[in-house]
């Protein structure tokens, strides 16, 4: 069967679900972040796929670049928070991090 837009979108949907599953179920903050990265990757596949099949110009690809850049900035800040959490609680399990008092 010829691979078309639907195939790429379905792949992105599966990746998105896997990432969402990790975000919802994992206790470990680093694993949750990995799930977020999967979700962003799924979104990016959609952007690039639409750029190829529907828009046929490079706007979608540029959006994808900006998504990757934002993801990198987010990951840097999020991991800094995880590290800070660890320094305070000696654990990075999210269910133990329910205190705002630090």
């Amino acid at each position, binding site marked *: 069967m010829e691979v078309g837009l639907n195939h790429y979108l379905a792949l992105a949907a599966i990746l998105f*679900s896997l990432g969402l599953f990790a975000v919802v179920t994992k206790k470990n903050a680093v694993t949750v972040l990995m799930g977020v990265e999967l979700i962003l990757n799924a979104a990016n596949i959609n952007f690039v796929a639409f750029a190829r099949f529907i828009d046929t110009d490079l706007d979608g690809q540029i959006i994808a670049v900006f998504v990757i850049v934002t993801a990198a900035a987010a*990951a840097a800040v999020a991991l800094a928070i995880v590290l800070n959490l660890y320094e305070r609680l000696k654990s990075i399990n999210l269910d133990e991090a329910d205190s705002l008092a630090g």
Partner: protein
Amino acid sequence: MDFTNIAFYIFAALTVGSAGVMVFHRNVVYSAVGLLFAFFGVAGIYVLLAADFIAIVQILIYVGGILILLLFGVMLSQKLTKVDVRTESMQLVPAVVVVGGVLAVLLLTISSTPWKLAGSLEYEPTTKAIGRLMMTEYLIPFEIASVLLLAALIGAAYIARKN
């Protein structure tokens, strides 16, 4: 069935399989390895979608940057004996229901929407075109990105330092 189709199925299987390892393996380092191959698979998908520049950026930022940072985070914050490196799951049953529902809705929407296809993008180098667009049409987002990066750098350094 031509080669790009076969390549699509190979990369899709690689991506989904490694993402599965990432999600379901109990050891965080194995999750990171799963993520490594998932990123690589997605880069392959980008190549098939005529986005060579994005594919390289994907490897450079995700594998060379974010994944290394994640691994450093694992190494720094976990006792690396075999027991403690595990990651536990919670609320499995509701999660399966919700995520299954989301996936079903997504797939249904994808298959039932009549997409207005407009041919397909040619396989040609995109780097120069992206550079040109970034300097003209996307100039404002580009400059804002630098401010975002500055904020992220200062914020992350500040949070990581304060202990």
